[in-house]
């Protein structure tokens, strides 16, 4: 069942002198109830801006965000308020996102108070205790302060706060990027457990492709303000149909010296979102670019044999077979 439909979302920032930063430039996707959509891309590709705009934490320039049939972008602030409790967010930095002056109990209870949920202190305290237990923390920590906890524990507290209002959707903006590797898997597993128990949908913004593969059911790859490919995790990794996705996958270091690769790294930096190339926006760095790529902007469309796999490439169906270790050094 579709929870969220984002259509042609754009976020532009005017710079003056007629220049405009097109941070998000026509993004469309759907998110099903209880599903995790991973959103990946290089820094500056607009993935975090997309996530914030659809929660209306940033003003969108164009487009619509349908949540159960209502366009969030067309609602007044008063109309938006009751919906806000159903849309929550967890931030990257577990050190900056929890107030150092509040106890853990106050942090988790704050959303309940703002939305006047639970009558009286005792009921709220009981709810906070349940929430802390559900993220694997002891209810006794409610009296302690955030600085007493490690990054992984703080992120659990942030998740408990996001769960307090029983949301339908949680936007996770790089939720484990600041954590140590041995702790990352703990938090990803916790998120999966909570999703199974509560049917929450996640929009998981990240840059760690190998982790997102396991954390997400579907993955949308962004480049310069657009989604260039969108497919199920398994399909995207086994049969990527956009040259940019392939470059990203090939850039991920493989933790196995036996599979060490002599790779051809993607050259240069992405173009500026102020001066987006004509036609296909990836063509300036694409090994497969042809004259048509300069002239025509390829739309994000389903592959003929795979309605569930979308790619924005003129050559999506004719790219060579994907061999992840194609550049493997000869033994």
């Amino acid at each position: 069942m579709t929870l969220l439909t984002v259509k042609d979302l754009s976020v532009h920032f005017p710079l003056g002198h007629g220049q405009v930063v097109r941070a998000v430039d026509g993004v469309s996707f759907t998110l099903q109830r209880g599903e995790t959509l991973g959103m990946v891309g290089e820094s500056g590709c607009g993935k975090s801006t997309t996530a914030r705009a659809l929660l209306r934490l940033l003003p969108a320039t164009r487009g619509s965000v349908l949540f159960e049939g209502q366009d969030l972008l067309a609602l007044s602030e008063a109309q938006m308020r009751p919906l806000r409790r159903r849309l929550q967010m967890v931030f990257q930095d577990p050190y900056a996102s929890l107030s150092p002056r509040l106890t853990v109990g106050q942090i988790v209870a704050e959303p309940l108070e703002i939305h006047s949920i639970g009558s009286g202190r005792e009921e709220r305290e009981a709810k906070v205790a349940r929430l802390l237990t559900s993220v694997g923390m002891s209810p006794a920590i409610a009296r302690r302060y955030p600085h007493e906890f490690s990054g992984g524990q703080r992120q659990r507290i942030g998740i408990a706060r996001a769960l307090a209002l029983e949301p339908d959707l949680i936007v996770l903006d790089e939720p484990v990027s600041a954590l140590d590797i041995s702790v990352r898997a703990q938090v990803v597993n916790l998120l999966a457990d909570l999703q199974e128990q509560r049917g929450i949908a996640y929009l998981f913004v990240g840059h760690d492709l190998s982790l997102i593969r396991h954390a997400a059911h579907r993955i949308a790859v962004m480049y310069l303000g657009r989604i260039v490919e969108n497919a199920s995790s398994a399909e995207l990794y086994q049969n990527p149909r956009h040259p940019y996705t392939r470059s990203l996958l090939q850039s991920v270091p493989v933790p196995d010296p036996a599979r060490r690769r002599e790779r051809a790294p993607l050259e240069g930096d992405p173009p500026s979102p102020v001066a987006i190339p004509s036609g296909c926006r990836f063509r300036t760095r694409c090994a497969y670019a042809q004259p048509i790529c300069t002239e025509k902007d390829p739309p994000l469309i389903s592959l003929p044999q795979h309605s569930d796999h979308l790619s924005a490439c003129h050559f999506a169906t004719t790219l060579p077979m994907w061999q992840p270790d194609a550049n493997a050094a000869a033994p």
Partner: protein
Amino acid sequence: MIPSQTGSADPLLSIQALTVAFPPARRGGSEARVVQGISVQVGRAETVGVVGESGSGKSMTALSALRLIPEPGRITGGRILLGDDDLLQRTEKQMRTVRGGKIAMIFQDPMTSLNPVFTIGDQIAEAVRLHRRLPRHEAWEEAVQALRRVHIALPERRARQYPHEMSGGMRQRVMIALALASEPEVLLADEPTTALDVTVQAQILALISEIKRDTGMGVLLITHDLGVVAETCDRVLVMYAGQMMETAEASRLFAMPAHPYTQGLLASLPERLAPDAAPQRRLPFIAGQPPAGGQIPAGCPFRNRCPKRMPGICEKPLPTTTLGPGHTVRCHLYPAPEPTR
């Protein structure tokens, strides 16, 4: 012989039984031994990885080589040899010629090394002139050349720009150019690609390998990313809570990790699951948290998180055991052979 020693016969840099401590934060507290008895060597054209999580002491180990431990920390034991030269015996003034001279260092955040108010050409030229007496215009030419060597397009134009005019990846290249200006023997690279996108990371790692190959420079690479280690390192040292847990050639460490901590780290990597396997929603993990500095227990520091802990045994001092050529582990699962007289 120091048994936990790893490395080549004729190292450029040899850190031996290094110990770094911070005094107690309050009266009656205990001192924090953030590095305990670490030995690591870097040879010519060799990349040695030091892997560990935050607080494992890996950065402190690198900073010790330049005697740049932040106050009030102190190097309380061990030797740091650059060739035959014991750096711990040098005066502060002599150290200044070593830093950014024979040993250069690059960091995660290039802005910590770049001055925002000077052009990058001026900054590199200044570094060149610190180590070689050259006229200004020749130093400037060297700076442009250094930018070209790190594959910066239009180096003449870029040399006249300021750090803020560049992307993160390009700043990292500039910092590498700056570090290489003195033609160092050893490069200490502390998480040099952690803040970068994977695409740019691949570019920077390729660049470091290329320069290492061309100049014979040795690289000590500090990282938490085992993927980066597998792709670039010849040998690896795994640290936990300031101590060496395991060291081996990279190929051997990944093929037959001996220490339960190394095994746990490798198992928690999603990429290590079979590459074609269907994605699993639950990943293996190491339970618990690393100990905070100053609260490191005696005996094995990993025992509270270790799936193979043996009560009554793991509290004892750790043995150091050689399992094969260059492969050493510190774990009670591998008792040291009885000493022979």
